[in-house]
């Protein structure tokens, strides 16, 4: 419904602006979101990025977005409409938009496309993603320091490589501090169901965990931590307002700098199809301020962030022992990106069976 209202508004605006289109032409940059911008999580953060483009590039650009776009044929239509409406660069921000983006991009060779978190590139389709696992490694170190029983509860959505990578990175970080650190994993089979996330958090706290880690989008679990006087980590956006005494840090997505850079390139005519997988060094993954922890833990976390930025600390540096006992990776070198992007195994120390 809301989508339609916004579209109706966009059409009205387009009609109004075409009447006086004698002024300098603005570059039209457009976004497609999988969720509502009101999720205060994934889509919200992309929209924060869009607003940064508007703010920094001012009247050189005009931006629009369509939210709540279902993956599949609906996405084809949404992307194609934006291309027809004169968008010069279109960001499609969900993994499931991959094929739709490629399909529409073929029909509109002059329009630039940017697809997030996928792996299919084309002449006019760039891809970008963030190394969220870097943040999770530091979170693991913090958790192992702060947790009294050495046990964290981990709330997760779906067993895709992105999520598994996060669990492993968290564990590897935690094991550097406490080799016997344990996690309890609960799959809620949803990215976004505040009720279930809160329930899972309560159950995990009930089972003895004193820290909650989540790879789901809402603030519900942190609110429970706040209520119980325990701790947790924010996801996607800084959730400190919801958990002033509970949030240790939040693993936030910062797409704005990248978006500004890419839109600028289109303005200058220097845009090329690229494959960007940026992390803390590129400022795409940002840990929000370290709070509610002793100074020595804070210092350790800050040091780790600095080392990751400098490239001297690689979360997935070999050799890594897998849950089944096999060892992968070369000493001093990170696992190759393609292995990370298809990760479907746990590291040693995780007491869960990976749903297949």
């Amino acid at each position: 419904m809301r989508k339609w209202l916004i579209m109706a508004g966009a059409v009205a605006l387009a009609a109004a602006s075409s009447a006086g289109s004698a002024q300098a032409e603005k570059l039209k940059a457009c976004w497609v979101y999988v969720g509502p911008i009101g999720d205060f999580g994934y889509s919200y953060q992309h929209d924060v990025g869009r607003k940064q483009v508007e703010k920094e590039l001012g009247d050189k650009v005009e931006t629009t977005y369509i939210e709540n776009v279902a993956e599949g044929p609906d996405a084809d239509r949404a992307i194609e409409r934006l291309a027809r409406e004169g968008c010069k660069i279109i960001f499609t921000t969900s993994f499931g938009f991959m094929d739709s983006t490629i399909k529409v991009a073929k029909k509109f060779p002059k329009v630039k496309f940017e697809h997030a978190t996928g792996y299919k590139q084309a002449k006019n389709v760039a891809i970008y993603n963030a190394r969220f696992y870097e943040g999770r490694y530091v979170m693991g170190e913090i958790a192992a320091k702060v947790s009294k029983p050495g046990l964290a509860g981990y709330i997760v959505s779906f067993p895709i490589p992105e999520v598994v990578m996060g669990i492993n990175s968290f564990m590897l970080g935690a094991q550097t501090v406490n080799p016997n650190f344990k996690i309890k994993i609960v799959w809620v089979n949803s990215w976004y169901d505040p009720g279930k996330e809160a329930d899972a958090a309560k159950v995990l706290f009930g089972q003895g965990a004193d820290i909650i880690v989540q790879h789901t989008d809402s603030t519900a679990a942190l609110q429970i931590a706040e209520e119980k006087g325990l701790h947790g980590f924010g996801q996607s956006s800084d959730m400190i307002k919801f958990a002033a005494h509970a949030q240790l840090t939040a693993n936030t997505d910062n797409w704005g700098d990248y978006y500004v850079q890419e839109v600028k390139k289109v303005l200058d005519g220097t845009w090329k199809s690229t494959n960007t997988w940026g992390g803390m060094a590129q400022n795409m993954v940002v840990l929000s301020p370290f709070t509610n922890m002793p100074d020595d833990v804070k210092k350790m976390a800050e040091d780790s962030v600095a080392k990751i930025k400098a490239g001297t600390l690689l979360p997935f540096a070999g050799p890594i022992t897998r849950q089944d006992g096999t060892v992968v990776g070369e000493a001093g070198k990170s696992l190759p990106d393609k292995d990370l992007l298809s990760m479907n195994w746990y590291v040693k120390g995780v007491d869960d069976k990976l749903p297949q």
Partner: protein
Amino acid sequence: MLQEIVLTIITASTPLLLAATGELVVERSGVLNLGVEGMMVIGAVTGFAVAFATGSLLLGTLAAMTGGILLALLFGLLTLTFIANQVATGLALTLLGLGLSGLIGESFVGQPGARLPKLDIPGVSDIPFIGPILFGQDAIVYLSFALVATVSYALFRTRIGLIIRAVGDNHASAHILGYRVIPVRYLCVMFGGACAGLAGGYLSLAYTPQWIENMTAGRGWIALALVVFASWVPVRVLVGAYLFGTVTILGFALQGFGIGIPAQVLSSLPYLVTILALVVISGNRVLMRANTPACLGQAFVPDR
């Protein structure tokens, strides 16, 4: 730990119970309103908005009910006065509710809200296990039980209940007997709206005190299904809602214990177990047929 699990079950089951009980009354009067999810999500946003603006959780709770009633009135106007198709209108109501709530709630995203206070009787609420469970809930939880009891009593032991059921079972006869079918249905639809709105308010004021879009996450649909599987009997709705809540939470607990049942199986269990249990309870076909409101979903147009 058991205490934590039971407490979690109660909060998980309450919104389902509230919304389903309201819908049960609506359906007993012969109206099928599929817009429960929409009314619920509107209740969640209006409740949060008013509580946030005024700082009063009581006003927030009342606003949640009002939001649900307003949307229900729209449904009543379309289906009872203008005789629009109930199924289509109900579905549209859900879409409208989801869209409208996003629009209303835009400025409330990312704002933490206050949680509805829990009853705290010194001494009694501190009794281990029983204390927090029986005497440590928030007002809406107690209200939900009172609601089931009241609805059950009113439907089967009072004249009002008799009229509602008469209207739902045979609107033509009820009309001839002099009962005003349309006003009765309007009131029932509004009651359903208030309950769904309250269920939504429970989500945004007590369950997870915040507003985010689509926060009902399909609970309205589960409530709708519960009514049918409970064969329109309030006490069975209670059983169904708590069974659903229990199996959901036990699923999480089992995962936490690391029992090797795949997570996907555990998360589908609440649906399977609830349907199975309620089908077994309502296995008596004669009773089932006797309970189904005969005029469910049929429009009523008086001859004169």
